[in-house]
């Protein structure tokens, strides 16, 4: 009898704690769907890849494609733009990257990037001939004044990163699969 009095509370404690723990896990499991519904849904994810025909883009011209609701900048770079991009020393950059890291080897004339400023998400200008290209002959974001160079690297302004490269591959010389 005396031992029972001693042991019973311990057993109850254990039961209380396990009950509470199971209850907490159950509650968390029940709440998770209520939270996860906010994340991108199946239709948003389904738009995960596009095939872009780049055959009609002339040298020096830029075209914007749409991928996952985002603008994709494709620029057919001139030899001068490529040479300029290669010539920049890495220590002059905010987010150092060589030109070779920004393009596919053998296709250096094609620059494929997500056209969203890495600062606060505006679409930089510089795709159309009449738009400002910034101080580094690439793109200029009018929202808070970020300048990108001809390899889409951030050179001046508040943006912390270079323009993002989407996952892409060349299916042929004229067809790019983005996503």
């Amino acid at each position, binding site marked *: 009898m005396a031992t029972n009095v001693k042991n019973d509370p311990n057993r109850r404690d254990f039961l209380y704690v396990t009950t509470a723990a199971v209850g907490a896990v159950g509650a968390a499991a029940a709440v998770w769907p209520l939270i996860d519904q906010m994340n991108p849904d199946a239709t948003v994810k389904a738009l995960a890849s596009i095939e872009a025909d780049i055959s009609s883009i002339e040298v020096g011209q830029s075209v914007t494609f749409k991928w996952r609701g985002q603008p994709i900048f494709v620029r057919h770079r001139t030899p001068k733009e490529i040479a300029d991009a290669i010539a920049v020393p890495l220590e002059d950059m905010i987010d150092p990257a060589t030109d070779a890291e920004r393009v596919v080897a053998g296709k250096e004339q094609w620059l494929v990037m997500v056209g969203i400023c890495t600062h606060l*998400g505006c679409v930089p200008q510089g795709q159309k001939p009449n738009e400002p290209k910034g101080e580094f002959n690439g793109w200029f974001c009018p929202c808070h004044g970020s300048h990108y160079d001809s390899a889409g690297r951030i050179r001046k302004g508040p943006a912390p990163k270079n323009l993002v490269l989407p996952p892409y591959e060349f299916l042929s010389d004229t067809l790019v699969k983005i996503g």
Partner: protein
Amino acid sequence: MSSHSNYNPTNPVEKWFDERLPLIRFSKEHLMDFPTPKNINYWWTFGAVLAIMLVMQIVTGIILAMHYVPNIEMAFDSVEHIRRNVNYGRIIQGTHAVGASMFFFAVYIHMFRGLYYGSYKAPREILWILGVIIFLLMMATSFMGYVLPWGQMSFWGATVITNVFSAIPLVGNTILEFLVGGFVVDNPTLNRFFSLHYLLPFIIAAVVALHIWALHVPGNGNPTGVEVKSSADTVPFHPYYTMKDLFVIVVFFIPFAWFVFFAPDILGHADNYIRANPFITPAKIVPEWYLLPFYAMLRAVDFDLLFINAKLGGVIVMFGSILILMVLPWLDRSKTRSGNFRPMFRPFFWLFVLNFMMLMYLGAQAAEGIYVILSKVGTAYYFGYFLIILPILARIETPKPLPNSISESILDKYEAKALKQEKMRGEGNSEIQGKGGK
């Protein structure tokens, strides 16, 4: 403070009801008989203005939701439909849109009142913090409401502000996708913003109830900062302050009505009458005027500090500028509440007000040249005021002597006035009398 009711139901039905649910007693204690300092001035009336504004926004908002469609294909047109076709829709939509501006105008006056008269000091810290929470909720609500018409400024404002969260290290982009429900601001974003824009005002109303509860524990402050000492210091809330508040509400509604009837769009941006286009960013993105000071501080940080990059730094400064208000009661340790008795505090306070207005102006300018430098100076003073000036003033300032009580301060004022008049008349008669009225 439940002893100030003189509610004595005589009617047996009322008595029966009172014993079961003392609703009438509660209303009489808190809405009518509540003892209120007899010296509070017009700066104290903006709480009532804000209460009315919240009700107006909720009523007009519920009506607008009957006609509005939260879908990216139809949202823009449905707002135009409300303004052009719905009976009185032009007025109701205008009242709601202009109402947001008037709401913020009133809340800024209310907050600066609190800053000047030390309303945040013990024992009103919780009351003040609840107010800051209401202010944050108001900003979230107004931001989401501004997205609903789905114009260019709606879309790009939503993009820029949600991207603020992407500055958070490691999980930033995951949070961003979670918030907007996609890779960019799109239909899921509009839908959830509509849902939350409908919800938040009721949360605000709940926090307002707590705010008033916290107010009714110590009772109102007053311009002297001396606490109420006896019933001679107070008058009942009704009719003295119900009437005074009502008068101010009427006056407040005059410019409000002018905006609604004659210039409902003057406080907005022309760009928001262009349908949202995810591929073209307007040349100049500017938030609504009431968010400009905080936007200016966000942009003022364009330099890296140690391991914090400029983007994250700007976001920390912007949120910090509001969160710092939460700890204000512990930064300003001066025992004297009211700025009226703090000669050194006053110039710094008015400079703070001017600085706030300067930041408001700078937030609307392009981020270049002199504007960037001024934004940095303004941001530095904003934080310096709370973190350096107020703590130091609390140590070195010698406040002016406080009156012994509220009623004495009023008598002193009349006495001084009477003495002055006597001197001017050159009479030897030392009769002291209060002038009628206030």
